[in-house]
């Protein structure tokens, strides 16, 4: 941490408060678990991939608020976000094309020989990854302010 007293210089808003840190440290595992739960069990309960992805993203935002967005930007490689997005959208696209090659239409998940609920759960996890990446990436790079010609911090 560069300046322990006040946020400035693209570090984004965060508070050096033990209350916030303890709360974030305690809550984050539960929030993450809840997000995964929402994504996986959205097929039979209220929830779904969009809700689960946003909750997972909110967990990362909570960590960033408590421990600083600046350290988080240095900790997470920017390429990881693009990779996660490609992984999620690629899984969704592969499932969709698989329906085509199994004799259905593109994105037709009813032609798979397994229970359709498992295919939907796979797609849901892919959607949740994409949504989580969008929320987390927006928060931690918006807090950096206007950039300086693309140089990495």
């Amino acid at each position, binding site marked *: 941490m560069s300046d322990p007293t006040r946020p400035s210089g693209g570090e984004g808003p965060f508070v050096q408060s033990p209350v916030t840190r303890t709360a974030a440290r305690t809550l984050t595992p539960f929030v993450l678990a809840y997000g995964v739960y929402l994504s996986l069990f959205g097929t039979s309960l209220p*929830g779904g991939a*969009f*809700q689960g992805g*946003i909750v997972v993203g*909110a967990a990362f*935002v909570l960590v960033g608020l408590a421990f600083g967005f600046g350290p988080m930007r240095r900790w997470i490689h920017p390429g990881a976000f693009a990779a996660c997005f490609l992984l999620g959208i690629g899984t969704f696209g592969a499932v969709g094309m698989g329906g085509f090659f199994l004799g259905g239409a593109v994105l037709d998940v009813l032609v798979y020989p397994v229970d*359709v609920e498992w295919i939907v759960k796979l797609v849901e996890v892919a959607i949740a990854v994409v949504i989580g990446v*969008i929320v987390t990436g927006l928060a931690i790079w918006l807090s950096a302010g206007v950039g300086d010609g*693309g140089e990495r911090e």
Partner: protein
Amino acid sequence: MIWLELGLVAFVLAAAVLIALSRDVVGATVTFAAFSLGLAVVWVLLAAPDVALVEAAVGAGVMSVLLLVAVIETDCLSSGDDEEQRFRPINWPLVAVLSVLAVPFGWTTLSLPAFGSPDAPAVQATYPDGGLTPYGYYIEATLVDAGFSNAVVAVLVVFRGLDTFGELVVAFAAAASVLVVLDRAVIP
């Protein structure tokens, strides 16, 4: 129960007016989070837990953080401290225009069928001429073809997968363009 709902609606309306009129942007942001939480509870009472989850997570959580980030990064923190009054003057012409707009919305709301009414067109399986309504089509197809119970997820993934796929691409493109505009498009 009706008093709980009325109290919540009053709270949400008061919060909305406070957000619109406050000069203190940080205070308005915090009020916005409270507004979203109140709205989320309203959604729960209206039996829409999916929407309530999104409202609580996006409106109260992520959106407040993004607004706070914007306030801090644009140095709006100090504005309003030297002002005598804490609220903006009300823009009466705007209020008049919005009131005129509110008339058709309110009239439409009052002419809707009662909440949860079994005779509502939205929950009939067939139209009067015998064709399947979207409700009849999707609920039956969800239960028979998909074999799981959350119809919203079934529509999003099973029946309207292309829309969802495009949605994700558009959302990521929007986030990426924001970062490009801010000159934060770091490709290592």
